[in-house]
């Protein structure tokens, strides 16, 4: 299992490193989306949970840390959106395919900040 030293390393080295790891996680989410769409089509009744959800939650927390490190006025709306999504997941635990895709696009936008 990969050693979990991510945050110690990232927080004390650079936001570039944090971004790199976020990018890897977002690519995993993209693969998950592709696989689900290949298997089930675009059926929005499909719900996403368990390991795919853990990838998403981890990415959202990484994204929150990343935008905090950017320390820019431009990130406020992204911060609010990330926090809202994490709170929604905590409350509901599952997402529909559309909601999962929406979160993926949010993360993609954050990577472009």
């Amino acid at each position, binding site marked *: 299992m990969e050693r*979990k*030293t*991510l*945050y*110690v390393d990232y*927080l*004390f080295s*650079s*936001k570039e490193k944090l971004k790199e790891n976020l990018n890897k996680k977002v690519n995993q989410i993209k693969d998950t989306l592709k696989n689900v769409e290949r298997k089930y089509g675009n059926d929005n009744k499909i719900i996403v*949970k*368990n390991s795919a*959800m*853990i990838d998403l*939650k*981890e990415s959202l*927390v990484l994204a*929150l*840390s990343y*935008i*905090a*490190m950017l*320390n820019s006025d431009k990130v406020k709306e992204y*911060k609010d959106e990330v*926090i*809202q999504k*994490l*709170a929604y997941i*905590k409350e509901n*635990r599952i997402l529909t395919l559309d909601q999962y895709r929406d979160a993926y696009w949010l993360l993609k936008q954050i990577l472009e900040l």
Partner: protein
Amino acid sequence: MDENFQYTYQIPDLKTRFQIGFGNIIEQIVNLLTYSEMYGDTETFDNEELKYKLRAAIAYALALLGSTWGYAMSVQVQADVETAKESLKALFSRIIKDSELSYLDLLDIYYQLIQKVSIILNYGTPIPRPRTGNYEIT
């Protein structure tokens, strides 16, 4: 015991120790936010646990800022340290005083904590401040 044996282990300085402590507690927070409530776990983690860990992280962050004393810093960085210190104190106080903090509020506190600490941590490698003044023991 071999008399030629020499200890090579170095005790990390205070700042490094606080960095490690801060990093560890941040990891615990991230794990709590990421892995809880998955795989059919019916128990929802309560905000108290998150609050407790955030308080610990803020305390470490304050200690970390304090441990930068004695390092050469530009006037701008010194001002940033002072501002970050006041902000962290305010966050700590908010957690202690406000018993109604929601999950959204706590995520916001996490965000602010990382923001304040990263300002200080990204200023580069500190250089020990040259000793000046009178250190004579009388």
